């Protein structure tokens, strides 16, 4: 690469890092939010832990190939992972569209969506370090479920989590942008959220769904958001299964990015026509 391109790359990276850092700092600034956040994820976990405990009491040793400790691990990863991959990009983008400040953002010399995703990464990283990790260890202690046994397993979990984050963020951007074409679509956003929660396996491992639904569910992008990292954490994935899921994840990311690029293009054209 030429020196000019090198420098551009370095500037680009440092800019995006700075954006992530800013988001991180701005989260620290909200004190009340920080302290409650620490409690929140443990409470989330607790509620579902007890529900599933009662379910297993009635259902026996294992449900859909999962034993209770594995289920607890799955739940732990589910909620703690959610701290990382969850973001409000869809709402935020929709709001910027509605308030018209999206047009303002376009005059900045960086990629709008890229910047938003990177900011979300900063936010996710913050929540993961301060809420999820401590929560995970605490939950494992209180609920006595096994943590990943080897560095490989930890690595697999973190890689899967990153893929889940990216898939979720891309979906959020997509839906946020759709609000460009529908004026007030909080309804759609809420529906999407529900779909994500149900279909991604946060509440319910996809194994438990009726047999005929499972292939469909497994191929949708939602399963990559939570079902994939949760199973990696609980040690339920064989290396070949992990590889297959990763490929699926990367494919969906490519498809979503393409869709996003097309949507963005149409939105920008519409923006110019409307006069901003």
């Amino acid at each position, binding site marked *: 690469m030429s020196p000019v391109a090198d420098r551009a790359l370095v500037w680009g990276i440092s800019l995006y890092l700075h954006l992530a850092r800013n988001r991180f*700092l701005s989260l*620290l*600034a909200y*004190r009340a939010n*920080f*302290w409650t956040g620490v409690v929140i994820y443990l409470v989330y976990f607790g509620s579902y832990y007890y529900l599933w405990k009662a379910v297993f009491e009635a259902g026996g040793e294992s449900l859909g190939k999962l034993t209770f400790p594995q289920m607890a691990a799955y739940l732990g990863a589910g909620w703690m992972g959610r701290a990382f991959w969850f973001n409000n990009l869809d709402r935020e983008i929709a709001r910027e569209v509605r308030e018209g400040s999206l047009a303002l953002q376009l005059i900045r010399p960086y990629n709008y969506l890229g910047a938003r995703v990177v900011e979300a990464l900063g936010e996710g990283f913050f929540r993961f370090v301060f809420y999820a990790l401590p929560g995970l260890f605490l939950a494992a202690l209180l609920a006595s479920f096994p943590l990943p046994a080897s560095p490989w397993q930890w690595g697999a979990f973190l890689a899967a989590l990153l893929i889940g984050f990216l898939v979720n963020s891309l979906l959020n951007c997509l839906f946020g942008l759709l609000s460009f074409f529908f004026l007030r679509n909080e309804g759609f956003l809420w529906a999407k959220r529900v779909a994500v929660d149900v279909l991604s396996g946060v509440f319910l491992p996809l194994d438990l769904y009726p047999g005929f639904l499972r292939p469909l569910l497994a191929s949708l992008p939602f399963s990559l958001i939570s079902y994939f990292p949760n199973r990696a954490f609980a040690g339920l994935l064989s290396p070949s299964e992990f590889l297959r899921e990763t490929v699926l994840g990367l494919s969906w990311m490519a498809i979503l990015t393409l869709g996003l690029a097309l949507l963005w293009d149409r939105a920008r054209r519409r923006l110019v026509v409307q006069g901003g």
Partner: protein
Amino acid sequence: MPGDDQPAIDARGLTKEFRKHVSRPGLGGALLDLFSRRYEMVRAVDGIDLLVQRGETVGYVGPNGAGKSTTIKMLTGILVPTSGHLRVNGMVPWRERARFARTIGVVFGQRSQLWWDLAVQETFRLLQKIYRLPESVYRERLEELTATLGLSDLLATPVRHLSLGQRMRCELAAALLHDPPLLFLDEPSIGLDVMAKAQLRRFLRRLNRERGTTVILATHDMGDVEAVCQRAVVINQGKILYDGSVERLRSLRAGTTTLEEAVRALYAAAGREK
């Protein structure tokens, strides 16, 4: 009901203090701020005296952060003063808020009080109900305001489709529907084009002349003050620098011939005294 001889606004030693937190710089500072914060006391309004008689037009002038908005918020009953004596329309604004609110009209330049998604007249209908205006009175007022502000084409238009100038006219009508004897305006001409500004100023002059409405105009646009007000009160850093006629203000300092220059000279002098 205030008698005719009672002043519209009677403020003495009016003060408002805020506790402002000072954030520490950098990442380490941000982490420290999580546990304990540093605060400093700010006097937004520092013992001001203000006596306004009914029927006056007062321009309340000051740069951003001078204490203008804070004063208006105290006068309209939104904020409770830290100390001092305050009577507006014979009442203590913050203490008898609901009753007091019936006697004032407020126009916030930066914030709309119209329902965004509906036609303008829907907001007016709601205001009629809120202020309990009898049907005949409401109709009469609406006709009058529609005529003087030129609203006939706008009444059926959704607020979000209005231009800023059109919206400002509707905001005025909304604030005056219940015919209050005292009208506050907080930066009403921001963002308006020259014609809209002229219209606004003409309207306010006429309002004061024909109905005797007391007008308090908080602004940093000296053109507004020049066109509408007989009296000017200049505030900076919480203190009143000048309180008198607009005429006299113009030539207050040696070498100043316009209001702008005079006011700037006042700020500079006050700054030097520090």
